[in-house]
């Protein structure tokens, strides 16, 4: 059967329409002809699921400084973040949040009418060491408001969208970028988008794990495509497990719940975070809290002997602990309904639990990729330890690794990352497109990926994508989770290698063209499998514990050997690990205590 290939030309092509892609589109389209290509309608993007807030040292409710935000970010990263990039993130967070307000974003307000802020894990007043109100919020749907606002502004500014076009390849010729290849979901036709610059803003790959807060569509397409086209993956062993996912379902319960005073309680009724983080307790960094929950469960302190603990935000419990801490503020049922309405809706819908009256059963959930496509602070993709830039290729948002999150991301910083680096990448792309030439397309630029699609479509094996995906998610959950050992990581690598072989014999049911989601899910599984393998391999090599990467067999952080970023290259069917130094600035690595 012949398949149509359509060709389009733009200056810049942005893949993905979440926060980073839309912010980049707004800025790039001021100076270049831009196309935004997304496999989802833009408002379906997962930025919209972000809840608690976006961090910026506005100081609207109490003293705050961007330098404190920077220190907290570096400490949160377990000193693996590049400190020059962190300075950019935290300094520009302030003006970028104000800019979002000027775009109409409906933040909650203080009594004086300023943007309201609340506490969040790991954000502190550096002098008193106490939690600081830094997370700017719109109820518990801050990400929804950011996504809607940016999409609205893109409509206002007449940005070109190609909705439900699934990008499946990058056209790279030596060290130049020529465009991308996409499948139009509605027709199944292939489209070549010819351009001077390409940006990936395709989000994370939480679907490698069984219990995840991530959408079904978060399959790491952009990262896997780059890996296949000779771009290394940075720091893939660092994947964040958010401490509070709804038990079994993984749906996120924002850290804002603890910011409002919620506490974690084990099966014995103890507020166990007092043991693990005596100073800021439940508001310690996510890696610290996830490990604490895991250890409590391992010690038999789960609730009802099961693999969960309670997150309690009932006014009775919260006010008891506030009084004990000598704080004057109190929480009421109305405040929960007003400040955490979506959380209340989720737990009522999916658990039949009313958070105003009862504690919520929670467990750690696979949440966020700290690692990904290596970039500099302008979103330019880099290829090696010498920071060689691949001209015309960009990445931003979760799929990118600048690195501002290092070994563990602080809550609220994903939204900051999206808008700050999305904007910088957009500005840089527009500038780049003004001086770059449109280089010719190679012959048959879609041929390679079309052959891969035909292979999947005509596969005669007995492997089903869904069954392989379930097995991948199981091995990643069992072996590449909150705690790791050499043995577990070897098991994961063995399992993944076997799955890769079976994937070569995949078979699908749908041989049609239109909305062939069977085919595209099978292709997405290929992306997940590769990223899972890179994650397990990078984790096995790093013989230390740092941030989100906790090794039972190497429980200490080892700055002497491991204060460096991992770069994993794909060469044929083999992977090769390389390392690059961390940029240290004002803050020398210290022991990390909360």
């Amino acid at each position, binding site marked *: 059967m012949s398949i149509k290939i359509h060709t389009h030309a733009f200056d810049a092509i942005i893949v993905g329409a979440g926060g980073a892609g839309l912010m980049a589109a707004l800025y790039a389209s001021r100076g270049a002809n831009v196309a935004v290509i997304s496999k*989802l*309608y833009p*408002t*379906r*993007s*997962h930025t*919209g*699921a972000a809840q608690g807030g976006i961090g910026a040292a*506005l100081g609207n409710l109490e003293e705050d400084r961007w330098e404190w935000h920077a220190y907290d970010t570096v400490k949160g990263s377990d000193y693996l973040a590049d400190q020059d990039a962190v300075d950019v993130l935290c300094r520009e967070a302030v*003006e970028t949040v*104000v800019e979002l*307000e*000027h*775009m*109409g974003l*409906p*933040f*909650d*307000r*203080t*009594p*004086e*009418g*300023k*943007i309201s802020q609340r506490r969040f894990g790991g954000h502190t007043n550096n002098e008193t060491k106490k939690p600081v109100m830094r997370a700017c919020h*719109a*109820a518990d*749907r801050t990400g*929804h*408001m950011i996504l*809607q*606002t940016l999409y*609205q*502004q893109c*409509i*206002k500014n007449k940005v070109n969208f190609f909705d439900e076009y699934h990008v499946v390849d990058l056209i790279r010729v030596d060290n130049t970028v020529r465009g991308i290849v996409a499948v139009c979901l*509605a027709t199944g036709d292939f489209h070549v988008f010819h351009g001077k610059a390409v940006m990936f803003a395709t989000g994370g790959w939480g679907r490698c794990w069984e219990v995840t807060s991530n*959408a*079904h*569509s978060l399959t790491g397409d952009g990262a896997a495509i780059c890996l296949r086209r000779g771009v290394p993956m940075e720091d893939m062993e660092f994947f964040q497990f958010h401490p509070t996912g709804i038990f079994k*379902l993984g*749906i996120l319960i924002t850290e804002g719940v603890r910011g409002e005073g919620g506490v974690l309680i084990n099966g014995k009724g103890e507020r166990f975070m007092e043991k693990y983080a005596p100073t800021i307790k439940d508001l310690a960094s996510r890696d610290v809290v996830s490990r604490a929950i895991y250890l409590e469960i391992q010690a038999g302190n789960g609730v009802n002997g099961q693999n969960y603990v309670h997150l309690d935000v009932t006014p009775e419990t919260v006010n008891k602990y506030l009084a004990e801490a000598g704080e004057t503020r109190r929480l009421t049922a109305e405040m929960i309904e007003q400040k955490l309405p*979506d959380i209340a*809706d*989720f737990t009522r*819908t*999916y658990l039949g639990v009313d958070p105003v009256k009862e504690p919520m059963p929670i467990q750690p959930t696979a949440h966020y990729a700290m690692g990904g496509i290596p970039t500099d602070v302008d979103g330019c993709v880099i290829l090696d330890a010498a920071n060689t830039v691949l001209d015309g290729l960009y990445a931003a948002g979760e799929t990118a690794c600048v690195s501002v999150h290092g070994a563990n991301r602080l809550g609220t910083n994903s939204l900051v990352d999206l808008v700050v680096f999305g904007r910088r990448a957009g500005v840089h792309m527009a500038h780049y497109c003004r001086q770059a030439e449109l280089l010719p397309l190679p012959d048959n630029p879609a041929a390679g990926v079309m052959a891969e699609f035909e292979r999947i479509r005509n596969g005669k094996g007995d492997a*089903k994508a*869904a*069954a392989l995906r379930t097995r991948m998610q199981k091995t990643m959950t069992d072996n590449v989770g909150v705690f790791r050992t050499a043995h577990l990581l070897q098991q994961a690598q063995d399992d993944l290698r076997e799955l890769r072989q079976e994937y070569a014999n995949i078979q*699908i*049911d*749908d041989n*049609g*063209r*239109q*909305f*062939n*989601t*069977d085919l595209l899910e099978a292709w997405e599984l290929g992306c997940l499998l590769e990223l899972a393998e890179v994650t397990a391999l990078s984790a096995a090599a790093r013989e230390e514990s740092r941030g989100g990467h906790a090794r039972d067999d190497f429980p200490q952080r080892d700055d002497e050997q491991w204060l460096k970023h991992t770069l994993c290259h794909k060469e044929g069917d083999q992977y090769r690990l390389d390392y690059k130094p961390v940029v240290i600035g004002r803050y020398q690595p210290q022991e990390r205590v909360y």
Partner: protein
Amino acid sequence: MQVKLRVRRFNPEKQPKPWWGEYTLDNVSPNDSVLDLLHRVKWTIDGTLSLRRSCAHGVCGSDAMRINGVNALACKMLVARLADGRDSVKIQVEPILGLRVLKDLIVDMEPFFDHYRAVLPYFMNNSPAPANGRERLQSPEDRARFDDTTKCILCAACTTSCPSFWANDRYVGPAAIVQAHRFIFDSRDEGFQERLDVVGDTFGVWRCRTIFNCTNACPRDIEVTKAIAEVKMALTSGEV
């Protein structure tokens, strides 16, 4: 428990007429969502079943469907709610009404987004921002005025449950009016007049017959009919 699932199927590449796919699913948990059931069919019985979904917890707006005759998000509609205590239940799933069906549960969303774009769904304010480089101020009371309509996820459950929209698809529909409301009642916005011109048009708010289907259908619990009424009042009074 057992679910007898009946799904409206359509694939124009294979046959011009729609048909019903029937699937008996055992060992269903009452906590499973309709999306879980559809995934089970797609992943273990028939991979050709096509639908849109993403977040699977009611915030992305991809999977609005007609479930037992009522619009809902498949990921937020749990089997327990439909079973109502029984140990076996029949669940019928169809695409939302009033938009062209492209394949199975996937409809053409373009006319819906055309209506959305028609109401100028973006913040307009040409006055200079505060000279101190900070945010515009807005009182918590002014912010609360339009809070309800900021929750919209553009899932189309409201518009495609509206008999006035079914009768004439040129009606902008409840979702677009919700979007207009979000800006009309924002004290910072200056696009009041331009937007009222659109929603006051022949195919604007006056097509609403206050049927309340939209309010019942909204998975975000937005008081859609009330928002439409407030826009009608703004049109007649010229004030917000």
